């Protein structure tokens, strides 16, 4: 058994007036993280620092997301961020700008195995 997924977390975030895809992605990550309190590291007796965190973001303009800026959201663990085309952009009525919606999935894994000692 190698890298093993334990929990997936889901969230949504938006940038309503500033069309800031990074901010929408950050809010989606916080929405995913702060709906849950994870105890899996403690439960299996692993240090929290060993937690592998794979983040998948969906927005309509993936290239506009500053992924390095998202890493500081995570209080512990080893986060990696990938961005795909997804989420949703919604134009305001009368051409007054665009509201951005980001989807986030946060995948929590450990490099773990059964202890046969």
């Amino acid at each position, binding site marked *: *058994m190698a890298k093993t997924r334990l*929990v997936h977390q*889901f969230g949504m975030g938006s940038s309503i007036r500033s069309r800031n895809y990074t901010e929408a992605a950050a809010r989606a990550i916080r929405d995913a993280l702060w709906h849950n309190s994870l*105890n899996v590291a403690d439960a299996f007796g692993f240090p929290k620092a*060993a937690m592998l965190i794979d983040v998948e973001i969906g927005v309509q303009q993936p290239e506009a997301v500053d992924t390095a800026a998202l890493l500081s959201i995570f209080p512990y663990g080893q986060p990696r961020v990938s961005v795909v085309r997804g989420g949703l952009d919604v134009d305001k009525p009368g051409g007054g700008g665009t509201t951005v919606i980001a989807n986030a999935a946060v995948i929590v894994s*450990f490099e*773990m195995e059964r202890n046969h000692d």
Partner: protein
Amino acid sequence: MTERRIILEMGTGNDLYGEDYTKAACRAVQDALHHSSIVLFKSLGIDHREMRVQVTIGVQQPDRVDVDVVTAELPRGRAEVNIVHGGLNVHDTDNDTTHVIATAAIAALLPIDPAQWRLNKMARPDRPMG
């Protein structure tokens, strides 16, 4: 084997016009459940019936929640639902309307023996603990 909490899921739900505390509580449970997926059952080959599910609902009128209906919202594990005074009611005096807001906290507990598991050699934490 010691039972350990693996996750606390939090959610909120409301009933805007019906003052239905059970409906608000069920929506709070669904909100809490669907912000995560506990995939370790499949990854590690654990039967979900080993999981104990402790649900606490907060509403302003606990006696108006049908506990059996809320319990039926939890498809996996063995669920126990407890209703306490909490949540929030928002009263609109202009329109004589009350919005009912429920909060749900769902704790999932599993018997896990940490001695049976270890990190493999590839796992080398390169960040300090937060």
